[in-house]
Protein backbone atom coordinates (compact mmCIF):
# COMPACT_ATOMS: atom_id res chain seq x y z
CA UNK A 1 0.00 0.00 0.00
CA UNK A 2 3.02 2.26 0.31
CA UNK A 3 2.96 2.86 -3.41
CA UNK A 4 -0.52 4.36 -3.52
CA UNK A 5 -0.39 7.47 -5.66
CA UNK A 6 -4.03 8.42 -6.01
CA UNK A 7 -6.55 7.72 -3.31
CA UNK A 8 -10.26 8.40 -3.52
CA UNK A 9 -11.77 7.95 -0.10
CA UNK A 10 -15.58 7.75 0.06
CA UNK A 11 -15.89 10.41 -2.62
CA UNK A 12 -19.28 11.79 -3.60
CA UNK A 13 -20.15 14.65 -5.90
CA UNK A 14 -23.37 16.60 -6.04
CA UNK A 15 -23.93 19.13 -8.81
CA UNK A 16 -26.06 22.08 -7.88
CA UNK A 17 -28.19 24.01 -10.28
CA UNK A 18 -30.86 26.60 -9.56
CA UNK A 19 -33.61 24.03 -9.84
CA UNK A 20 -32.02 20.82 -8.82
CA UNK A 21 -29.37 18.84 -7.06
CA UNK A 22 -27.83 15.93 -8.95
CA UNK A 23 -25.94 13.22 -7.15
CA UNK A 24 -23.45 12.33 -9.87
CA UNK A 25 -21.26 9.86 -8.00
CA UNK A 26 -21.57 8.36 -4.55
CA UNK A 27 -19.11 6.78 -2.18
CA UNK A 28 -16.30 6.08 -4.62
CA UNK A 29 -13.47 4.15 -3.01
CA UNK A 30 -10.46 3.65 -5.22
CA UNK A 31 -6.73 3.63 -4.90
CA UNK A 32 -4.33 3.75 -7.80
CA UNK A 33 -0.74 2.74 -7.47
CA UNK A 34 2.19 4.50 -8.95
CA UNK A 35 2.77 3.32 -12.52
CA UNK A 36 -0.62 1.67 -12.72
CA UNK A 37 -2.95 1.95 -15.70
CA UNK A 38 -6.63 2.03 -14.73
CA UNK A 39 -9.65 2.15 -17.00
CA UNK A 40 -13.09 3.38 -16.06
CA UNK A 41 -15.96 1.89 -18.02
CA UNK A 42 -19.65 2.36 -17.52
CA UNK A 43 -22.81 3.72 -19.08
CA UNK A 44 -23.13 7.31 -20.20
CA UNK A 45 -23.86 9.59 -17.27
CA UNK A 46 -22.40 7.32 -14.59
CA UNK A 47 -19.93 9.99 -13.57
CA UNK A 48 -16.70 9.01 -15.31
CA UNK A 49 -15.84 12.54 -16.40
CA UNK A 50 -16.88 13.80 -12.98
CA UNK A 51 -14.39 11.48 -11.29
CA UNK A 52 -11.57 12.58 -13.58
CA UNK A 53 -12.38 16.26 -13.07
CA UNK A 54 -12.23 15.85 -9.31
CA UNK A 55 -8.89 14.05 -9.47
CA UNK A 56 -7.55 16.79 -11.74
CA UNK A 57 -8.53 19.35 -9.11
CA UNK A 58 -10.98 21.26 -11.29
CA UNK A 59 -13.50 21.05 -8.47
CA UNK A 60 -13.44 19.36 -5.06
CA UNK A 61 -15.66 16.41 -4.11
CA UNK A 62 -18.81 17.22 -2.13
CA UNK A 63 -17.91 14.53 0.36
CA UNK A 64 -14.85 12.42 1.00
CA UNK A 65 -11.27 13.24 0.12
CA UNK A 66 -8.91 12.74 -2.76
CA UNK A 67 -5.21 12.45 -2.02
CA UNK A 68 -2.32 12.42 -4.39
CA UNK A 69 0.96 11.28 -2.90
CA UNK A 70 -0.78 11.52 0.44
CA UNK A 71 -1.58 15.21 -0.10
CA UNK A 72 -5.09 16.54 -0.27
CA UNK A 73 -5.45 18.29 -3.59
CA UNK A 74 -6.42 21.89 -3.97
CA UNK A 75 -6.64 22.91 -7.60
CA UNK A 76 -4.95 21.68 -10.75
CA UNK A 77 -1.21 21.03 -10.72
CA UNK A 78 1.32 20.47 -13.47
CA UNK A 79 1.79 16.94 -12.13
CA UNK A 80 -1.51 15.97 -13.70
CA UNK A 81 -2.36 16.07 -17.37
CA UNK A 82 -6.08 16.00 -18.07
CA UNK A 83 -7.29 15.37 -21.59
CA UNK A 84 -10.88 16.54 -21.69
CA UNK A 85 -13.61 14.59 -23.43
CA UNK A 86 -13.64 17.09 -26.31
CA UNK A 87 -10.55 18.48 -27.95
CA UNK A 88 -11.28 22.20 -27.41
CA UNK A 89 -8.49 23.28 -29.71
CA UNK A 90 -8.19 27.05 -29.77
CA UNK A 91 -9.21 27.88 -33.31
CA UNK A 92 -7.22 31.11 -33.49
CA UNK A 93 -3.96 29.29 -32.84
CA UNK A 94 -2.03 27.07 -35.19
CA UNK A 95 -1.66 23.40 -34.26
CA UNK A 96 1.86 24.16 -33.10
CA UNK A 97 0.67 26.97 -30.86
CA UNK A 98 -2.12 24.74 -29.58
CA UNK A 99 0.19 21.98 -28.45
CA UNK A 100 2.45 24.53 -26.76
CA UNK A 101 -0.52 25.95 -24.85
CA UNK A 102 -0.05 24.02 -21.61
CA UNK A 103 3.68 24.70 -21.52
CA UNK A 104 2.99 28.36 -22.17
CA UNK A 105 0.55 28.57 -19.27
CA UNK A 106 2.97 26.83 -16.97
CA UNK A 107 5.82 29.07 -18.09
CA UNK A 108 7.84 26.12 -19.29
CA UNK A 109 8.06 26.84 -23.00
CA UNK A 110 11.68 26.60 -24.06
CA UNK A 111 13.61 25.08 -27.00
CA UNK A 112 13.85 21.70 -25.28
CA UNK A 113 10.16 21.34 -24.40
CA UNK A 114 9.26 22.71 -27.84
CA UNK A 115 11.37 20.11 -29.55
CA UNK A 116 9.92 17.33 -27.43
CA UNK A 117 6.38 18.49 -28.20
CA UNK A 118 7.02 18.59 -31.94
CA UNK A 119 8.53 15.13 -31.65
CA UNK A 120 5.25 13.94 -30.11
CA UNK A 121 3.33 15.58 -32.93
CA UNK A 122 5.51 13.71 -35.35
CA UNK A 123 4.76 10.45 -33.53
CA UNK A 124 1.06 11.11 -34.08
CA UNK A 125 1.75 11.54 -37.78
CA UNK A 126 0.75 15.19 -37.82
CA UNK A 127 4.03 17.03 -38.12
CA UNK A 128 3.01 18.44 -41.50
CA UNK A 129 0.10 20.17 -39.85
CA UNK A 130 2.16 22.17 -37.36
CA UNK A 131 1.34 25.43 -39.12
CA UNK A 132 -2.25 24.52 -39.98
CA UNK A 133 -5.31 25.74 -38.08
CA UNK A 134 -7.66 23.40 -36.17
CA UNK A 135 -10.55 23.90 -38.61
CA UNK A 136 -8.39 22.35 -41.33
CA UNK A 137 -8.19 19.06 -39.40
CA UNK A 138 -10.56 16.12 -39.15
CA UNK A 139 -12.06 15.06 -35.81
CA UNK A 140 -9.56 12.26 -35.38
CA UNK A 141 -6.62 14.53 -36.14
CA UNK A 142 -7.88 17.10 -33.67
CA UNK A 143 -8.10 14.44 -31.00
CA UNK A 144 -4.51 13.45 -31.59
CA UNK A 145 -3.47 17.09 -31.32
CA UNK A 146 -5.30 17.31 -28.00
CA UNK A 147 -3.43 14.21 -26.85
CA UNK A 148 -0.11 15.80 -27.79
CA UNK A 149 -1.12 18.96 -25.92
CA UNK A 150 -1.75 16.84 -22.81
CA UNK A 151 1.47 14.85 -23.11
CA UNK A 152 3.53 17.98 -23.87
CA UNK A 153 3.60 19.15 -20.27
CA UNK A 154 5.03 15.74 -19.34
CA UNK A 155 2.73 15.06 -16.38
CA UNK A 156 3.26 12.15 -13.99
CA UNK A 157 -0.41 11.34 -13.96
CA UNK A 158 -2.49 11.16 -17.12
CA UNK A 159 -6.25 11.45 -17.01
CA UNK A 160 -7.61 10.55 -20.43
CA UNK A 161 -11.30 11.03 -21.13
CA UNK A 162 -12.12 8.95 -24.21
CA UNK A 163 -8.95 9.99 -26.02
CA UNK A 164 -9.50 7.66 -28.97
CA UNK A 165 -13.25 7.97 -29.51
CA UNK A 166 -12.98 9.94 -32.78
CA UNK A 167 -10.29 7.80 -34.38
CA UNK A 168 -10.61 5.20 -37.09
CA UNK A 169 -9.97 1.67 -35.87
CA UNK A 170 -6.47 1.35 -37.26
CA UNK A 171 -5.19 4.67 -35.94
CA UNK A 172 -6.79 3.86 -32.64
CA UNK A 173 -4.94 0.57 -32.28
CA UNK A 174 -1.66 2.24 -33.21
CA UNK A 175 -2.16 5.06 -30.76
CA UNK A 176 -3.13 2.67 -27.99
CA UNK A 177 0.24 1.01 -28.40
CA UNK A 178 2.01 4.33 -28.58
CA UNK A 179 0.36 5.67 -25.44
CA UNK A 180 0.93 2.48 -23.44
CA UNK A 181 4.56 2.44 -24.53
CA UNK A 182 5.12 6.06 -23.57
CA UNK A 183 3.43 5.55 -20.23
CA UNK A 184 5.44 2.47 -19.39
CA UNK A 185 8.72 3.95 -20.52
CA UNK A 186 8.32 7.01 -18.33
CA UNK A 187 6.60 5.15 -15.49
CA UNK A 188 3.55 7.33 -15.64
CA UNK A 189 0.27 6.59 -13.95
CA UNK A 190 -2.87 6.72 -16.06
CA UNK A 191 -6.62 6.68 -15.69
CA UNK A 192 -8.47 6.13 -18.94
CA UNK A 193 -12.17 6.58 -19.55
CA UNK A 194 -13.55 4.59 -22.44
CA UNK A 195 -16.70 3.07 -23.84
CA UNK A 196 -14.67 0.47 -25.66
CA UNK A 197 -14.41 -2.69 -23.53
CA UNK A 198 -11.59 -4.17 -25.63
CA UNK A 199 -9.60 -1.00 -25.27
CA UNK A 200 -10.03 -1.07 -21.51
CA UNK A 201 -8.84 -4.67 -21.24
CA UNK A 202 -6.00 -4.30 -23.73
CA UNK A 203 -4.52 -1.19 -22.15
CA UNK A 204 -5.00 -1.47 -18.43
CA UNK A 205 -3.88 -3.27 -15.33
CA UNK A 206 -7.28 -2.92 -13.73
CA UNK A 207 -10.71 -2.14 -15.10
CA UNK A 208 -13.17 -0.29 -12.89
CA UNK A 209 -16.75 -1.01 -13.84
CA UNK A 210 -19.18 1.72 -12.85
CA UNK A 211 -22.95 1.73 -12.58
CA UNK A 212 -25.22 4.73 -12.57
CA UNK A 213 -28.00 6.53 -10.68
CA UNK A 214 -25.99 7.56 -8.81
CA UNK A 215 -22.57 6.66 -10.16
CA UNK A 216 -20.91 3.94 -8.09
CA UNK A 217 -18.26 1.27 -8.49
CA UNK A 218 -19.79 -2.10 -9.37
CA UNK A 219 -16.67 -4.12 -9.69
CA UNK A 220 -12.93 -3.80 -10.08
CA UNK A 221 -11.38 -6.37 -12.35
CA UNK A 222 -7.68 -7.27 -12.32
CA UNK A 223 -6.32 -7.99 -15.76
CA UNK A 224 -3.96 -10.99 -15.78
CA UNK A 225 -0.30 -10.73 -16.72
CA UNK A 226 -0.79 -12.48 -20.07
CA UNK A 227 -2.92 -9.63 -21.30
CA UNK A 228 -1.16 -6.86 -19.43
CA UNK A 229 2.38 -7.52 -20.56
CA UNK A 230 2.08 -7.32 -24.34
CA UNK A 231 1.18 -4.02 -26.00
CA UNK A 232 -2.55 -3.48 -26.58
CA UNK A 233 -2.57 -4.73 -30.17
CA UNK A 234 -0.99 -8.06 -29.21
CA UNK A 235 -2.97 -8.28 -26.00
CA UNK A 236 -6.10 -8.63 -28.06
CA UNK A 237 -4.68 -11.89 -29.45
CA UNK A 238 -4.41 -13.52 -26.03
CA UNK A 239 -6.70 -16.53 -25.47
CA UNK A 240 -7.95 -15.10 -22.17
CA UNK A 241 -8.95 -11.80 -23.75
CA UNK A 242 -12.36 -12.92 -24.93
CA UNK A 243 -13.43 -14.26 -21.55
CA UNK A 244 -12.56 -10.96 -19.91
CA UNK A 245 -14.49 -9.14 -22.57
CA UNK A 246 -17.49 -11.31 -21.79
CA UNK A 247 -17.12 -10.76 -18.07
CA UNK A 248 -17.21 -6.98 -18.39
CA UNK A 249 -19.96 -7.10 -20.98
CA UNK A 250 -22.15 -9.17 -18.66
CA UNK A 251 -21.43 -6.86 -15.75
CA UNK A 252 -22.47 -3.78 -17.75
CA UNK A 253 -25.46 -5.57 -19.23
CA UNK A 254 -26.74 -6.75 -15.84
CA UNK A 255 -26.47 -3.27 -14.44
CA UNK A 256 -28.30 -1.91 -17.45
CA UNK A 257 -31.20 -4.30 -16.86
CA UNK A 258 -31.29 -3.56 -13.17
CA UNK A 259 -31.52 0.20 -13.66
CA UNK A 260 -33.96 0.07 -16.54
CA UNK A 261 -36.41 -2.24 -14.81
Amino acid at each position, binding site marked *: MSDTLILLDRVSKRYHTKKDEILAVENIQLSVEKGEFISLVGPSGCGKSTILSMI*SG*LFPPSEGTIRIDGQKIN*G*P*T*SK*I*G*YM*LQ*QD*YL*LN*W*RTIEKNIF*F*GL*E*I*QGRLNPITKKHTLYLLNEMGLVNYAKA*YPNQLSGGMRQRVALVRTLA*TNPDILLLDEPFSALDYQTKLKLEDLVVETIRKHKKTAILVTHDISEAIAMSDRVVILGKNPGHINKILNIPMEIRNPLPLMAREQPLFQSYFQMIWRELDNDDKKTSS
Partner: protein
Amino acid sequence: MMIKKLLRKGAKSEEHAKYLAQLRVYDIYIKITQYLLLIFLLGIWELSVNMQWVDEFLFSKPSKIFNLFIDMMMKGELQHHIYVTLLETFIGFLLGTLLGTILATFIWMSPFVSKVMDPYLVVLNGMPKVALGPIFIVAFGAGYISIIAMALAISVIITTIVIYGSFKEVDPNYLKLAQTFGAKKLQIFLKIILPASFPTIISTLKVNVGLSWVGVIVGEFLVSKAGLGYLIIYGFQVFNLTLVMLSLFIISVAATFMYQGVSYLEKKLLSIHE
Protein backbone atom coordinates in the same frame (compact mmCIF):
# COMPACT_ATOMS: atom_id res chain seq x y z
CA MET B 1 -6.00 42.83 -77.17
CA MET B 2 -4.80 44.28 -73.86
CA ILE B 3 -8.32 44.31 -72.55
CA LYS B 4 -8.92 40.74 -73.57
CA LYS B 5 -5.78 39.69 -71.74
CA LEU B 6 -6.79 41.53 -68.60
CA LEU B 7 -10.22 39.97 -68.66
CA ARG B 8 -8.70 36.50 -68.86
CA LYS B 9 -6.07 37.01 -66.19
CA GLY B 10 -5.52 34.03 -63.91
CA ALA B 11 -7.67 31.65 -65.96
CA LYS B 12 -7.07 27.94 -65.48
CA SER B 13 -8.61 26.88 -68.79
CA GLU B 14 -10.46 28.20 -71.81
CA GLU B 15 -13.78 27.70 -70.07
CA HIS B 16 -12.55 29.27 -66.86
CA ALA B 17 -11.36 32.26 -68.94
CA LYS B 18 -14.82 32.72 -70.36
CA TYR B 19 -16.32 32.53 -66.90
CA LEU B 20 -13.85 35.05 -65.51
CA ALA B 21 -14.32 37.43 -68.43
CA GLN B 22 -18.06 37.33 -67.92
CA LEU B 23 -17.74 38.14 -64.22
CA ARG B 24 -15.32 40.96 -64.88
CA VAL B 25 -17.37 42.54 -67.63
CA TYR B 26 -20.36 42.46 -65.31
CA ASP B 27 -18.34 44.25 -62.60
CA ILE B 28 -17.27 46.88 -65.12
CA TYR B 29 -20.89 47.49 -66.15
CA ILE B 30 -21.81 48.00 -62.51
CA LYS B 31 -19.01 50.54 -62.01
CA ILE B 32 -19.95 52.43 -65.17
CA THR B 33 -23.60 52.56 -64.16
CA GLN B 34 -22.68 53.85 -60.72
CA TYR B 35 -20.71 56.74 -62.20
CA LEU B 36 -23.37 57.51 -64.77
CA LEU B 37 -25.99 57.63 -62.04
CA LEU B 38 -23.89 60.09 -60.04
CA ILE B 39 -23.36 62.34 -63.06
CA PHE B 40 -27.03 62.10 -63.89
CA LEU B 41 -28.15 63.07 -60.38
CA LEU B 42 -25.73 65.99 -60.17
CA GLY B 43 -26.80 67.04 -63.67
CA ILE B 44 -30.49 66.97 -62.76
CA TRP B 45 -29.75 69.01 -59.67
CA GLU B 46 -27.77 71.62 -61.60
CA LEU B 47 -30.37 71.71 -64.35
CA SER B 48 -33.38 72.09 -62.08
CA VAL B 49 -31.74 75.03 -60.35
CA ASN B 50 -30.71 76.64 -63.62
CA MET B 51 -34.20 76.20 -65.05
CA GLN B 52 -35.57 77.60 -61.78
CA TRP B 53 -37.67 74.51 -61.09
CA VAL B 54 -36.38 74.68 -57.54
CA ASP B 55 -35.14 77.55 -55.43
CA GLU B 56 -31.40 78.09 -55.72
CA PHE B 57 -31.34 79.79 -52.33
CA LEU B 58 -32.57 76.63 -50.63
CA PHE B 59 -30.91 73.96 -52.72
CA SER B 60 -27.74 75.63 -53.93
CA LYS B 61 -26.23 73.73 -56.87
CA PRO B 62 -23.28 71.46 -57.60
CA SER B 63 -21.22 73.99 -59.56
CA LYS B 64 -21.62 76.58 -56.82
CA ILE B 65 -20.65 74.07 -54.13
CA PHE B 66 -17.62 73.08 -56.14
CA ASN B 67 -16.57 76.70 -56.63
CA LEU B 68 -16.94 77.37 -52.90
CA PHE B 69 -14.84 74.29 -52.25
CA ILE B 70 -12.02 75.49 -54.49
CA ASP B 71 -12.29 79.00 -53.09
CA MET B 72 -12.10 77.92 -49.44
CA MET B 73 -9.32 75.47 -50.13
CA MET B 74 -7.30 78.21 -51.83
CA LYS B 75 -7.74 80.45 -48.84
CA GLY B 76 -6.77 77.51 -46.62
CA GLU B 77 -9.94 77.91 -44.50
CA LEU B 78 -11.40 74.53 -45.19
CA GLN B 79 -8.34 72.50 -44.29
CA HIS B 80 -8.43 73.74 -40.73
CA HIS B 81 -12.07 72.80 -40.23
CA ILE B 82 -11.56 69.37 -41.73
CA TYR B 83 -8.50 68.80 -39.58
CA VAL B 84 -10.28 69.79 -36.37
CA THR B 85 -13.24 67.51 -37.00
CA LEU B 86 -11.12 64.57 -38.10
CA LEU B 87 -8.92 64.87 -35.04
CA GLU B 88 -11.87 65.05 -32.66
CA THR B 89 -13.54 62.10 -34.32
CA PHE B 90 -10.40 60.05 -34.26
CA ILE B 91 -9.68 60.74 -30.61
CA GLY B 92 -13.29 60.09 -29.63
CA PHE B 93 -13.25 56.86 -31.57
CA LEU B 94 -10.01 55.63 -30.03
CA LEU B 95 -10.99 56.60 -26.50
CA GLY B 96 -14.46 55.10 -26.85
CA THR B 97 -13.12 51.76 -28.04
CA LEU B 98 -10.26 51.66 -25.57
CA LEU B 99 -12.29 52.74 -22.56
CA GLY B 100 -15.14 50.40 -23.51
CA THR B 101 -12.74 47.46 -23.70
CA ILE B 102 -11.13 48.36 -20.39
CA LEU B 103 -14.50 48.75 -18.69
CA ALA B 104 -15.64 45.42 -20.10
CA THR B 105 -12.48 43.83 -18.73
CA PHE B 106 -13.10 45.19 -15.25
CA ILE B 107 -16.67 44.00 -15.31
CA TRP B 108 -15.64 40.56 -16.53
CA MET B 109 -12.99 40.17 -13.84
CA SER B 110 -15.64 40.11 -11.13
CA PRO B 111 -19.02 38.43 -11.62
CA PHE B 112 -20.26 40.42 -8.64
CA VAL B 113 -19.36 43.74 -10.23
CA SER B 114 -20.99 42.65 -13.47
CA LYS B 115 -24.25 41.83 -11.68
CA VAL B 116 -24.14 45.15 -9.84
CA MET B 117 -23.39 47.14 -13.00
CA ASP B 118 -26.05 45.45 -15.09
CA PRO B 119 -28.98 47.84 -14.48
CA TYR B 120 -26.69 50.86 -14.71
CA LEU B 121 -25.45 49.80 -18.11
CA VAL B 122 -28.99 49.21 -19.31
CA VAL B 123 -30.14 52.66 -18.22
CA LEU B 124 -27.03 54.43 -19.55
CA ASN B 125 -27.34 52.60 -22.83
CA GLY B 126 -30.99 53.52 -23.19
CA MET B 127 -30.39 57.20 -22.46
CA PRO B 128 -29.91 59.44 -25.51
CA LYS B 129 -26.33 60.55 -24.88
CA VAL B 130 -26.83 63.74 -26.86
CA ALA B 131 -28.95 64.98 -23.98
CA LEU B 132 -25.78 65.08 -21.88
CA GLY B 133 -24.46 67.93 -24.05
CA PRO B 134 -25.23 70.79 -21.64
CA ILE B 135 -23.67 68.88 -18.76
CA PHE B 136 -20.47 68.38 -20.70
CA ILE B 137 -20.34 72.05 -21.57
CA VAL B 138 -20.72 73.00 -17.93
CA ALA B 139 -18.15 70.45 -16.85
CA PHE B 140 -15.53 70.78 -19.58
CA GLY B 141 -16.20 74.23 -21.01
CA ALA B 142 -17.30 75.13 -24.50
CA GLY B 143 -14.32 73.62 -26.27
CA TYR B 144 -13.02 70.56 -27.96
CA ILE B 145 -12.95 68.56 -24.72
CA SER B 146 -16.72 68.70 -24.56
CA ILE B 147 -16.91 67.59 -28.17
CA ILE B 148 -14.63 64.62 -27.59
CA ALA B 149 -16.57 63.79 -24.42
CA MET B 150 -19.69 63.70 -26.56
CA ALA B 151 -18.14 61.30 -29.06
CA LEU B 152 -16.87 59.19 -26.19
CA ALA B 153 -20.21 59.14 -24.37
CA ILE B 154 -22.02 57.93 -27.47
CA SER B 155 -19.71 55.00 -28.13
CA VAL B 156 -18.36 53.89 -24.77
CA ILE B 157 -21.42 52.26 -23.20
CA ILE B 158 -22.42 50.24 -26.22
CA THR B 159 -18.79 49.18 -26.68
CA THR B 160 -18.66 48.03 -23.07
CA ILE B 161 -21.88 46.07 -23.42
CA VAL B 162 -20.95 44.42 -26.72
CA ILE B 163 -17.42 43.49 -25.68
CA TYR B 164 -18.44 42.29 -22.24
CA GLY B 165 -21.11 40.23 -23.98
CA SER B 166 -18.50 38.60 -26.16
CA PHE B 167 -16.27 37.93 -23.15
CA LYS B 168 -19.17 36.14 -21.54
CA GLU B 169 -19.99 34.15 -24.66
CA VAL B 170 -16.59 32.48 -24.79
CA ASP B 171 -17.10 28.73 -24.47
CA PRO B 172 -16.61 27.94 -20.75
CA ASN B 173 -14.90 24.71 -21.78
CA TYR B 174 -11.99 26.76 -23.10
CA LEU B 175 -11.65 28.16 -19.60
CA LYS B 176 -11.80 24.65 -18.21
CA LEU B 177 -9.06 23.62 -20.59
CA ALA B 178 -6.84 26.47 -19.42
CA GLN B 179 -7.63 25.58 -15.82
CA THR B 180 -6.51 21.99 -16.30
CA PHE B 181 -3.06 23.43 -16.99
CA GLY B 182 -3.32 25.56 -13.86
CA ALA B 183 -3.97 28.89 -15.60
CA LYS B 184 -4.50 31.98 -13.41
CA LYS B 185 -7.33 34.40 -14.03
CA LEU B 186 -5.09 36.88 -15.82
CA GLN B 187 -3.71 34.14 -18.07
CA ILE B 188 -7.22 32.97 -18.86
CA PHE B 189 -8.09 36.52 -19.83
CA LEU B 190 -5.03 37.14 -21.97
CA LYS B 191 -4.80 33.75 -23.63
CA ILE B 192 -8.43 32.73 -23.98
CA ILE B 193 -10.96 35.50 -23.42
CA LEU B 194 -9.22 38.30 -25.30
CA PRO B 195 -8.20 36.38 -28.42
CA ALA B 196 -11.56 34.61 -28.57
CA SER B 197 -13.33 38.00 -28.47
CA PHE B 198 -10.95 39.62 -30.90
CA PRO B 199 -13.32 39.50 -33.89
CA THR B 200 -16.05 41.18 -31.83
CA ILE B 201 -13.70 43.90 -30.63
CA ILE B 202 -12.67 44.58 -34.21
CA SER B 203 -16.27 44.75 -35.34
CA THR B 204 -17.08 47.31 -32.65
CA LEU B 205 -14.42 49.50 -34.24
CA LYS B 206 -16.60 49.82 -37.31
CA VAL B 207 -19.67 50.73 -35.30
CA ASN B 208 -17.70 53.20 -33.22
CA VAL B 209 -16.45 55.11 -36.24
CA GLY B 210 -20.04 55.92 -37.12
CA LEU B 211 -20.97 56.75 -33.54
CA SER B 212 -17.97 59.03 -33.10
CA TRP B 213 -18.99 61.03 -36.16
CA VAL B 214 -22.44 61.54 -34.69
CA GLY B 215 -20.97 62.60 -31.36
CA VAL B 216 -18.50 65.03 -32.86
CA ILE B 217 -20.94 66.71 -35.23
CA VAL B 218 -23.54 67.11 -32.49
CA GLY B 219 -20.83 68.41 -30.18
CA GLU B 220 -19.73 70.94 -32.78
CA PHE B 221 -23.33 72.02 -33.26
CA LEU B 222 -23.46 72.82 -29.58
CA VAL B 223 -20.21 74.52 -28.75
CA SER B 224 -17.54 74.81 -31.34
CA LYS B 225 -15.79 77.59 -33.15
CA ALA B 226 -14.27 75.32 -35.75
CA GLY B 227 -14.96 72.07 -37.55
CA LEU B 228 -17.38 70.80 -40.14
CA GLY B 229 -20.28 70.68 -37.71
CA TYR B 230 -19.59 74.30 -36.91
CA LEU B 231 -19.58 75.17 -40.62
CA ILE B 232 -23.03 73.61 -40.98
CA ILE B 233 -24.45 75.60 -38.08
CA TYR B 234 -22.71 78.76 -39.23
CA GLY B 235 -23.86 78.32 -42.84
CA PHE B 236 -27.38 77.76 -41.57
CA GLN B 237 -27.30 80.91 -39.42
CA VAL B 238 -26.13 83.16 -42.24
CA PHE B 239 -28.36 81.34 -44.75
CA ASN B 240 -25.42 80.18 -46.79
CA LEU B 241 -26.88 76.83 -47.82
CA THR B 242 -24.02 76.26 -50.22
CA LEU B 243 -21.67 76.13 -47.26
CA VAL B 244 -24.00 73.70 -45.48
CA MET B 245 -24.10 71.43 -48.54
CA LEU B 246 -20.34 71.59 -48.94
CA SER B 247 -19.79 70.61 -45.29
CA LEU B 248 -22.27 67.77 -45.60
CA PHE B 249 -20.49 66.54 -48.68
CA ILE B 250 -17.06 66.62 -46.99
CA ILE B 251 -18.42 64.85 -43.92
CA SER B 252 -19.81 62.03 -46.05
CA VAL B 253 -16.56 61.63 -47.93
CA ALA B 254 -14.43 61.72 -44.77
CA ALA B 255 -16.71 59.35 -42.85
CA THR B 256 -16.68 56.93 -45.78
CA PHE B 257 -12.89 57.01 -45.94
CA MET B 258 -12.59 56.43 -42.22
CA TYR B 259 -15.07 53.56 -42.36
CA GLN B 260 -13.22 51.99 -45.28
CA GLY B 261 -9.97 52.42 -43.40
CA VAL B 262 -11.33 50.57 -40.40
CA SER B 263 -12.81 47.88 -42.65
CA TYR B 264 -9.40 47.43 -44.20
CA LEU B 265 -7.83 47.27 -40.76
CA GLU B 266 -10.43 44.72 -39.72
CA LYS B 267 -9.64 42.51 -42.70
CA LYS B 268 -5.91 42.78 -42.05
CA LEU B 269 -6.19 42.03 -38.33
CA LEU B 270 -8.63 39.19 -38.78
CA SER B 271 -6.45 37.55 -41.41
CA ILE B 272 -3.59 37.53 -38.92
CA HIS B 273 -5.96 36.24 -36.29
CA GLU B 274 -7.44 33.40 -38.34
